[in-house]
Structure formats: structure tokens, C-alpha cells
């Protein structure tokens, strides 16, 4: 045996055995929390990568409490490949949101600008804060919508975060698909930390 055995009351001398009941209690509690979390009715990830999860970082959709019309993504997976960060954000389109009910009252369709909002929330959740500032949209270089997202559809947003082009600027290129494979939108957006024009 190599390594260290942590135990409650082992009699073997250290360093092979370390008596640490507090650490063991914490480990058991963490295991129980993980077990309960994995058994939730709506887990964050299902059949992730068909079991091939090497090199994958799972990022919960984080709540940074900023103004937003709605929660535009449900789940997020972040990958790093050859020095570039990529993510896939997904959302099931539902009609039971005040903004959706109003767009439109006689026919609900996911507003195209909410795909841009989803990209923003995905970038914020993937990168997080830097010196108290969030990554924000500085310019939209190109944006094209090609198919509608309706209630019941799943939005799948794949994005590549390019390396920073300036001291506080980086480009994100994204493709938004429906779960039936149709391309709903393509986007090329410049982000930077902090809001332009805010002291």
C-alpha cells in the first residue's frame, strides 16, 4: 500500500495512518451531498459526454445578479482545447416567462436578441469576474438569425472564446442550433471586462 490512510482510531503508526475523524466526517458528508445532488429530478448534466469526461470542466450556471430579461441558459459545459476556451450552453424554450408571453401574446417565439443574451450569460458564467467586473458586450460585429426557436425547442449554443486581441477585448464566435439540427443563429461578438462608459 502506498499513500496515507486516514482513520478514526487506527493503531498503526504515522505516517502510514493518520487519525483524523473530523476529516472523515467531512468526506462522508460531501459524499452524501454528491449522491443526493446526482439524484435530483433535474440534474445539471445527463449522460455527459457518453461517459467520456476526461479533460472536461463542469461549470454550473452561476448567478452573478445582473440585470437580464430572463435566464437565457439552463446548462453550461466548458472545454479547453489547444489554448482556446469553448463552451456549449443549452436552454429549453418555454412560454411561461413574462417576456416570452409578451413576444407575442398570440404567438410565442423566442426573441432573437435573447440568443445574444444567452451568449452573454454563457460568457459571464464561463469566465466569471475579474477585479469585480463581468465580461460584457462591447460590440456586435455580426449577427444573423436563420430559424425560429419556439416553445418546446432546445437551444444549443456553441461558442469559441478567442484569445484576447487587446488588453481588454476578446472575440466570441458562436453558432446557435435547435435540437432538430437547424441553425437558428450565428454570432460574432466582441466582449471586454466591464461596461463601456462606466467609470
Amino acid at each position, binding site marked *: 500500500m502506498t499513500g496515507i490512510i486516514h482513520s478514526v482510531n487506527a493503531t498503526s503508526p504515522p505516517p502510514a495512518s493518520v487519525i483524523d475523524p473530523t476529516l472523515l466526517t467531512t468526506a462522508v458528508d460531501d459524499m452524501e451531498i454528491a449522491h443526493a445532488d446526482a439524484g435530483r429530478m433535474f440534474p445539471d448534466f445527463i449522460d455527459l459526454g457518453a461517459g467520456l469526461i476526461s479533460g472536461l470542466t463542469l461549470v454550473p450556471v452561476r448567478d452573478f445578479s445582473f440585470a437580464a430579461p430572463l435566464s437565457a441558459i439552463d446548462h453550461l459545459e466548458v472545454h479547453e482545447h489547444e489554448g482556446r476556451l469553448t463552451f456549449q450552453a443549452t436552454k429549453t424554450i418555454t412560454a411561461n416567462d413574462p417576456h416570452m408571453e409578451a413576444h407575442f401574446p398570440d404567438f410565442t417565439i423566442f426573441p432573437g436578441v435573447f440568443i445574444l443574451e444567452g451568449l452573454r450569460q454563457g460568457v459571464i458564467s464561463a469566465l466569471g469576474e475579474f477585479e469585480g467586473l463581468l465580461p460584457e458586450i462591447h460590440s456586435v460585429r455580426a449577427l*444573423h438569425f436563420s430559424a425560429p426557436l*419556439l416553445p418546446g425547442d432546445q437551444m444549443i449554443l456553441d461558442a469559441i472564446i478567442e484569445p484576447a486581441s487587446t488588453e481588454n477585448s476578446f472575440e466570441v464566435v458562436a453558432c446557435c442550433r435547435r435540437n432538430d439540427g437547424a441553425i437558428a443563429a450565428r454570432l460574432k461578438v466582441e466582449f471586454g471586462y466591464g461596461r463601456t462608459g462606466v467609470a
Partner: protein
Amino acid sequence: MGGPALLNYSQISLILPHGRAMMLVDRVESIEPGVSIVGIKAITGTELCYKDVPNHSALDRCAYPVSLLLESFGQTATLLWLRSNDLGCEDVSRVLMFVSARDLKIEGCAFPGDVLKHCARLEKSLHDTVFVSGETWVGDRRIAAIGSMIAVVRPRSLVLDNASSRARQMHIGSPDEVFSLV
């Protein structure tokens, strides 16, 4: 504040198909059909987009979302199109759908208490495609420059026919005909 209303909130609500939470133009100050429009949107802290922002949050967390800013500008441009005779003034059998945009620069922020002033210009219209550009101001600060926003006119029946598969198959714009992207 601002000039007299050419279209007030009640009149706009009769023109735009949006419900209250997504009707993002409060007043129209001027329209020159086929040329330009000035639309007004007042931001308040009671709007739905602020409901999850805690008290004592930093100011930058209270900035009006860019997504709603663009939607508000787009609705102003829609009002211009609807009032432009050359494009089928108030033709309720057709709707204008936002399909693409280029070169949108966000130069500043708007916060609760600010009033957005959207100045939209109709650049050109080709068949069923409309090209708009413009700017958004808060007082004397320009906070957004819209290089190009493109919309297409589609039969309303096609858009509203949710029950049929036509809406799901609807092709609302060709990437190749508008521009090549990414």
C-alpha cells in the same frame, strides 16, 4: 422632457404586436416616412429585467441589458417601416422580422432613470428586405451606434401559423443573400 409625441404609448400599443413586458418604445417624437424616426424609451428600476438584482448592487450590474437595448431600437425601426408608405404602410398582413445586424458598437450604458432616444434611419429597401442604421442616445451621450440592421418582410399568416409545420420550417433569411458570416 423631449418633444411632443407624434405617437403616444397607447397608439404604439395598437401598432406593435408585442405585449407589455416586451413593448420597448414609449413614445415617438418624429417620423419622416421612408427616411427616419426618433423613438423614446424610459428605463425604470421596476422593469422585469431588474427583479433579480439585489439592493446595494454595484452600478454596472444595473446597466440596461444590451439585448433589450437592441430590441428597443429594432421596435423603433419597425414603427418607421410601418409608417413608411413605400414599404406598405400599416399592412397588417405582413410583418417585419429582424434577421441580421452588423457593426453594433456599445459605447456607453443606460441605467434606471435614463431615457433612451433611438434615432433610426432607413438606408434602403430591396424587395422584401429593409436596411436600417442609427444611434441611441442618453441625453448628450451616444451609447450605441448601429451600423446596419436588416429585416425582412414576411406574410403574417406564415409567422402566426403556429399549428402547422410551416412556421418551424420557415426560412426567415438567407445567410448568403444578406452577408457571409463567421
